[in-house]
């Protein structure tokens, strides 16, 4: 029988992946634009999508802590098992840390985040130029780390699936 993640875990996985797939290039594109209404709009959309990721990632972590993931194939080498745990653990951390640094940076730079223009989030730090710049670099570098890990994560899943012919994509809900 094929081992699969539970339906909520699968839905959260692909929702978060899809949102990050939009938020990331948007972040890179918008921050190079000259100041204009378009830039302000894109910043807002980026922040709204990012906060949605934070929310979904929070749910995902809670779900993960309360549910066992499907067992890995028994013949998977030990180092790959260890690597898989390490990368998944880091990915969960980054799914929280990336949007959190974005939110805190915005607060420190003096721009409150109002989710979808409706729900004002509290500013957890005071306005402070140096702190804002530091959080901005943190947001940027954590994003590059996230990108590297996502590439590794996708490459590993595809390798197991296509080269080792293990039903890895099915684990995350793809195919029968």
């Amino acid at each position, binding site marked *: 029988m094929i081992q699969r993640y539970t339906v909520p875990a699968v839905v959260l996985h692909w929702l978060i992946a899809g949102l990050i797939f939009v938020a990331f290039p948007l972040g890179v594109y918008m921050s190079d634009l000259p*100041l204009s*209404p378009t830039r302000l709009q894109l910043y807002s959309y980026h922040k709204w999508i990012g906060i949605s990721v934070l929310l979904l990632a929070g749910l995902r972590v809670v779900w993960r802590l309360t549910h066992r993931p499907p067992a890995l194939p028994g013949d998977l080498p030990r180092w790959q098992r260890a690597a898989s745990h390490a990368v998944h653990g880091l990915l969960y951390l980054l799914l929280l840390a990336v949007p959190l640094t974005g939110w805190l940076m915005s607060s420190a*730079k003096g721009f409150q985040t109002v989710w979808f223009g409706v729900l004002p989030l509290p500013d957890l730090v005071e306005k402070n130029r140096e702190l804002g710049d530091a959080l901005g670099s943190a947001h940027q570098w954590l994003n590059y780390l996230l990108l590297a890990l996502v590439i590794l994560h996708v490459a590993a899943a595809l390798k197991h699936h296509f080269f080792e012919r293990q039903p890895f994509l099915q684990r995350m809900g793809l195919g029968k």
Partner: protein
Amino acid sequence: MMLKSLTLLAALTLAPAAHAIEYRSVVPAQSRIGFEFTQMGVKIPGHFKRFTAQMAFDPAKPESAQATLEIDLASIDAGSPEADEESAGKLWFNRTAFPRARFVSSRVRALGNNRFELSGTLTLKGRSRPLTIPVRYVPGKDIAFFDGSFVLKRLDFGIGEGMWADVETVANEVTVKFRIAATGK
């Protein structure tokens, strides 16, 4: 008779002195001219650091009060360095051509309870518009405060033209909040 008129003179000069203070000297360090604009539904506070003001306000004769205020637009803090820089441009204040904003009062109406309505003309970016501002007088021991807040429509003055005229991104309404501190001399 002589004594009587002397006492009267003393009474006239001394007694009212306690009351008839006329506030004429603005204390910039304790005054503040702030504003709040809305960008993508998010409120952004800002203020002007430099301005000069002349005023004369006698609580006993408020209707004859006068005020002139001049704001150095280069002293803006619009929430971020990018916004400060942007505000100087042609589409916003066009600061090289119009470096200052100016308000000159024309009339004061007492509403009672230390509340007043100050009417005058605001000149910003070469456009002059009548303006009526509610002011609250907060008496103090040596210093008095004049507080108020009102909503300005930025497009009435051509602040934010061209692509910035879209009020969905930056709202037309800007709330101005001020506190002017003055001492009597």
